């Protein structure tokens, strides 16, 4: 009887989560799956189209271009972000003057809205009168078409995204660094290890769980690239910054092809799942 009362209480307490999960996760997921086999523009009744959306996806060059662009972004952004975050975390973990100030400064862009950051960097990258090109001109160098060149636009966005997010990963690495036992460094000192040897043989292996976490989080974050190309380039020039999420968004909310957008979203989710799976294995094996 008492056990049943506890069960009931537990049910009541979990009910909000179950409702939230059902309404905002399970239902949309199942509904999206239903959409994969339908044509739907939100305003008129759904039409059963069978596998037509999947067939269309297979022949959609723009989707594969968007996937490729996203991979380029992830390929530049993640290594750059991890390397910089680790570098600054190690630096900020040492006893330097103004450590608190620097920590706060690096974290500041993380809390600024992506839209605001995109707008500011749009001004910085401006070909004619952007600050970066003005500096290059002052140095006697030619201007760089940061966002106007199909080859440079995505790397430029990756640099900006790295600047915005690196602070978060610095904090994670700092937490990881502070949990490394001091006696390991003392033992390495006794063995006569250099600073680099201590970093490679003590710090990095001990940071493995943090590295795995940072790689997975930044991969998922990287694959969800949207605000930056939406605000700065609208996927151009020549579709070079068209990310997968931006393409899915356009299909759904510009062109109201909900069924096809759902198909693209499922395909993209599977790709992310596969990449993260491989990545985890590689990172864990290497460590």
């Amino acid at each position, binding site marked *: 009887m008492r056990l049943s009362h506890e069960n009931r209480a537990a049910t009541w307490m979990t009910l909000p989560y179950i409702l939230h999960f059902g309404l905002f996760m399970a239902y949309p997921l199942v509904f999206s799956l239903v959409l994969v086999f339908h044509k739907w523009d939100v*305003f008129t009744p759904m039409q059963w189209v069978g596998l037509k959306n999947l067939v269309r996806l297979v022949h959609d060059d723009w989707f594969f271009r968007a996937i490729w662009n996203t991979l380029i972004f992830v390929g530049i952004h993640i290594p750059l972000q991890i390397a910089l975050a680790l570098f600054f975390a190690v630096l900020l973990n040492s006893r330097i003057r103004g450590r608190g100030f620097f920590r706060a400064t690096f974290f500041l862009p993380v809390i600024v809205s992506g839209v605001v950051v995109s707008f500011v960097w749009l001004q910085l990258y*401006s070909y004619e009168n952007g600050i970066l090109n003005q500096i290059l001109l002052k140095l006697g160098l030619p201007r760089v078409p940061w966002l106007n060149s199909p080859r440079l636009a995505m790397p430029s966005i990756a640099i900006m995204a790295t600047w915005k997010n690196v602070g978060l990963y610095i904090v994670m690495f700092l937490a990881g660094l502070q949990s490394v036992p001091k006696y390991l460094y003392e033992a390495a000192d006794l063995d006569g290890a250099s600073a680099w040897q201590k970093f490679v043989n003590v710090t990095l292996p001990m940071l493995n769980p943090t590295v795995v976490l940072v790689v997975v989080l930044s991969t998922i974050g990287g694959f969800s690239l949207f605000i930056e190309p939406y605000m700065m380039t609208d996927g151009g020039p020549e579709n070079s910054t068209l990310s997968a999420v931006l393409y899915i968004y356009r299909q759904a909310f510009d062109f109201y092809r909900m069924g096809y957008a759902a198909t693209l979203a499922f395909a993209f989710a599977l790709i992310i799942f596969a990449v993260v799976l491989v990545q985890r294995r590689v990172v864990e094996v290497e460590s």
Partner: protein
Amino acid sequence: MSAGNGNRSRWRFAMLALVAGVAIFSAGCQRRSVDRLVQHKLVYWPSANPQEIELARDLVREWNRLHPEVPVEMQPVPESQSTEEVLLAAIAGHTTPDVCSNIWPGAVAQFVRAGGLVPLDTFPDFDSLATSRLHAGVLNQVRQADGHIYEMPWKMNPVMLEYNVKMFREAGYSGLPALYDDFLEAGRRITADTNGDGRIDRWLMYVDFRVKWWTRFFDFYAFYLAASRGQALVKNRQVIFENPAAVQVFRFFRRGFDLGFFPRSRFQVDVFLMGYVACHPTGPWNIAHVEKFKPPGFEYDYAPIPVPDSSCLPPVTYGDPKDIAIFTTTRWPRDAWNFVKFLVTREADLKLLRVCSQIPVRKGLLQDSLYAAYFQAHPKMQRFAEQAAHTRGVDPVPELKEIFDAISHEFETCCLYGHKSPEQAVHDAAERAREILE
């Protein structure tokens, strides 16, 4: 026993709270429609820009004075990225107003497909009003695939070239050259490095080359209509823009960019007022802006879109029209129709000109004595009124945005980056448009 009673009362209390919550929520949702049931009232959504709100407020005040039995409540279109987005969401949620006067004809096919609009040609006096106000061509442009007309053509902002009179005068021109070759020749004389730092800092024309689908209204589409003498892009769901006119337009822009006459940069300033460019495509809405911010002694004027050869004169341009429609959620369609008629009277059109500086869609506008004083006092608006007779809207196709998106990408690849020939780019855009329409 008492524990059981306590549980039961807690259960009842929880159920009561749930029911009360649902009741309050649904009452909140339904309040609007209940209000409308109780009170014989029309809800009217004008555009949310300050001038149109002022006009709407003025017109609604007048209507309410004349028709106290059918009061109209004015609410500007709710803020969003576009009115079309808001209206489609409202159609899906059955929360549309009775009347809206910010209807872009390109979205009407979608609204009709969603069952959101009342066919206006079913009102007995529609024909008499339409024929007295509009040219037959205008009505045909807004006729939907089912043969009905769901929008009352109301106003337009014809796209023309705004140009710096002094720059062209110094280059030896008394006005803007009308043909492509002459226009580009002017580019040779105007494009220059004016401060001698080795970099071009003055160009012939600014083209907003972003790939957003609607940016093509102001370059490709306006120039295509001029070059093709007002031909459609799509007719009876068949792509018809794969033609010499479209190729000529692509080639014109390609040459302009290749020769360096059109800047390949996006600026964060007003390039026209700063004197960076000699001209740019725009509409009458820009007059107020230029008048407010122009530097002392700045001379500007408006001219029609250039064309490939003189057989295309006078050039047709994109009219950027906005129309009025009645939504199927209205409980008083007849009253709504009467209100629509009130919005398009001669006097209301004069207010539209005076308050909003936009051109009413009305035949004989320049011959009507009611407007003579206005155009005399506003000669630049007269340019747009003259152009208004040679305009076209957009084709009534639900997939129009996607088609413009396809054109926009090919425009960028061909004209801006030169990675495709004009023929290939037009062909590829047409192929993609055919796939979209399938």
